[in-house]
């Protein structure tokens, strides 16, 4: 996989240096903060062990088919036509000029997520540093830890951060700079090299933390119910009655969607650096399995069981309800103060989250990089500079105003992912044609892909997506759009965040139009 290919503009395309590097980079793309924070809270809130039934059903009918499909679209667009981003890929799939505009979601989604994700990622780097130096040591309640987080973000005053937002801002700049530097170094020199270092470290840290948690037993003998065993029971004891709740099935499908980084354009982009006959069936399945290993086994051992051991079941329930940030940034720091070598394990925990974050965020940046390089003929240096400036400008309101992160997460990081997945499954299975799609998925395959997936991709996956989108629209998007429960003070920020999303979308559509006008000049390939 090391020979460079040529794109239609005659520029050499980058390539993965090794198959293992590709797998680690793809797994790094999939393994993110959600594996260690979102999964355990979702499982605990949605029936414990019973959650795994809809979870595995969604993995089989939605996750794996979509994952293979995105790999196949990426390889087809990249190896045949030199496109590393979805506008070009969609155009060659459908052979219609307007279809390239549907591919805007493969730029919009990763760009929007990259903006706020970079900021959250910078918190993990900061907290790793705070753990090593003991900055939050001495804060012993979740409420006070919440105030610590708020003051770090500049939304509250505290003696810990007399300069207000300064510390968070410096870590944000540092994180953005590292991301851009890795992207500037390219596919094999940047992303693949990062994955080869970060992924083994991530697994090492996760295993060390899992062993530490499993050997904690019952930390307070006066509270025998507060134990790791109770925590595992809370997370895994099945509550079959929850299976009749459609919300549980929806939560499981959503989790599969996020954990495999589907609907983002990143898988397409990474797969575009494959050759025409390279295997994607086994390589793709291996990355999905590696992601599941990190999520269900390691992610399921660490955060929730240790929370039960130190906070008890009742408070852990409220932590799970409050969500991932509460678990990761408010509860875990208190726990690290109560265990031996807390500085060390705290540093390890947040470094683990940072590695999980950065291997995902570079994957979000690469589609935009590929778009700028291939469709505008820019050098990697220029593309990286443009991306850096764009993210730097757009991250400002996320850093300064509280409502932006949630709004961008819902529209760009949740709803638009499912819309994009539905668009691509229709294009690939129905417009490009299922027979050709199947040939793309199975060509060069190192495993036999069961024929059942031919029918699953054609019928079941689109239906599943329509159902998810329908439920999300009714249950979440419409109330969100109406700003139900949003205070009058926050409404202006919400509207501003939406305006920013519209501007990003319009800007990207404009760029696509400009890129194709440039491509269609005499002497350029379509």
């Amino acid at each position: 996989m090391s020979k460079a290919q040529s794109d239609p503009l005659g520029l050499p395309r980058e390539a993965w240096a090794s198959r293992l590097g590709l797998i680690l980079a793809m797994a790094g793309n999939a393994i993110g903060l959600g594996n260690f924070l979102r999964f355990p809270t979702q499982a605990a809130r949605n029936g414990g062990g019973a959650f795994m039934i809809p979870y595995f059903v969604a993995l089989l009918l939605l996750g794996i088919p979509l994952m293979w499909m995105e790999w196949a679209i990426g390889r087809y667009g990249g190896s045949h036509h030199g496109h590393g981003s979805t506008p070009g890929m969609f155009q060659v799939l459908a052979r219609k000029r307007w279809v390239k505009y549907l591919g805007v979601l493969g730029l919009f989604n990763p760009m929007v997520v990259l903006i706020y994700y970079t900021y959250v990622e910078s918190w993990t780097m900061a907290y790793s540093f705070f753990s090593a130096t003991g900055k939050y040591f001495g804060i012993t309640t979740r409420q006070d830890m919440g105030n610590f987080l708020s003051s770090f973000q500049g939304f509250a005053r505290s003696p810990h951060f007399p300069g207000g937002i300064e510390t968070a801002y410096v870590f944000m700049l540092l994180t953005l700079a590292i991301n851009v530097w890795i992207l500037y170094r390219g596919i094999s020199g940047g992303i693949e090299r990062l994955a080869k270092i970060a992924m083994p470290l991530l697994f090492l840290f996760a295993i060390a933390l899992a062993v530490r948690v499993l050997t904690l037993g019952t930390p307070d003998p006066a509270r025998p119910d507060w134990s790791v065993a109770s925590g595992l029971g809370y997370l895994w004891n099945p509550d079959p009655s929850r299976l009749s709740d459609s919300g549980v099935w929806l939560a499981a499908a959503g989790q599969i969607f996020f954990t495999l980084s589907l609907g983002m354009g990143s898988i397409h982009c990474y797969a575009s650096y494959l050759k025409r006959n390279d295997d994607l069936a086994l390589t793709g399945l291996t990355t999905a399995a590696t992601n599941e290993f990190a999520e269900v086994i390691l992610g399921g051992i660490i955060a929730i069981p240790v929370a039960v051991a130190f906070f008890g079941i009742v408070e852990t329930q409220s932590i799970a309800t409050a969500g991932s940030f509460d678990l990761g940034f408010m509860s875990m720091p208190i726990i690290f103060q109560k265990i031996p070598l807390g500085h060390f394990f705290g540093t390890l925990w947040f470094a683990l989250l940072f590695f999980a974050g950065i291997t995902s965020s570079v994957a979000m940046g690469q589609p935009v990089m590929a778009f700028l390089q291939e469709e505008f003929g820019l050098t990697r240096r220029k593309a990286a500079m443009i991306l850096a400036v764009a993210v730097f400008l757009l991250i400002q309101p996320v850093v300064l105003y509280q409502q932006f992160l949630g709004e961008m997460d819902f529209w760009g990081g949740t709803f638009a992912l499912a819309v994009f997945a539905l668009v691509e499954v229709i294009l690939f299975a129905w417009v490009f044609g299922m027979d050709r799609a199947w040939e793309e998925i199975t060509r060069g395959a190192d495993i036999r892909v069961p024929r059942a997936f031919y029918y699953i991709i054609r019928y079941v996956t689109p239906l599943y997506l329509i159902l998810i989108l329908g439920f999300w629209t009714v249950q979440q998007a419409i109330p969100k759009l109406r700003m139900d429960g949003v205070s009058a003070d926050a409404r202006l920020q919400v509207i501003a965040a939406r305006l920013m999303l519209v501007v990003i979308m319009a800007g990207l559509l404009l760029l696509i139009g400009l890129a194709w006008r440039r491509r269609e000049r005499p002497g350029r390939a379509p």
Partner: protein
Amino acid sequence: MIAPVAASGLTAGGVAFVLLAWGGIAGLTAFCFHRLFKTQERRPPR
């Protein structure tokens, strides 16, 4: 709303789900990497 959960260790059902989930995923991961290295060995250098 989360239903209250009894503060107990893993039940037999919990153990079964853990073993099934962890065993299934660990097995799939092992299978994939095994096949990957096998096919890598067979493949002529490019």
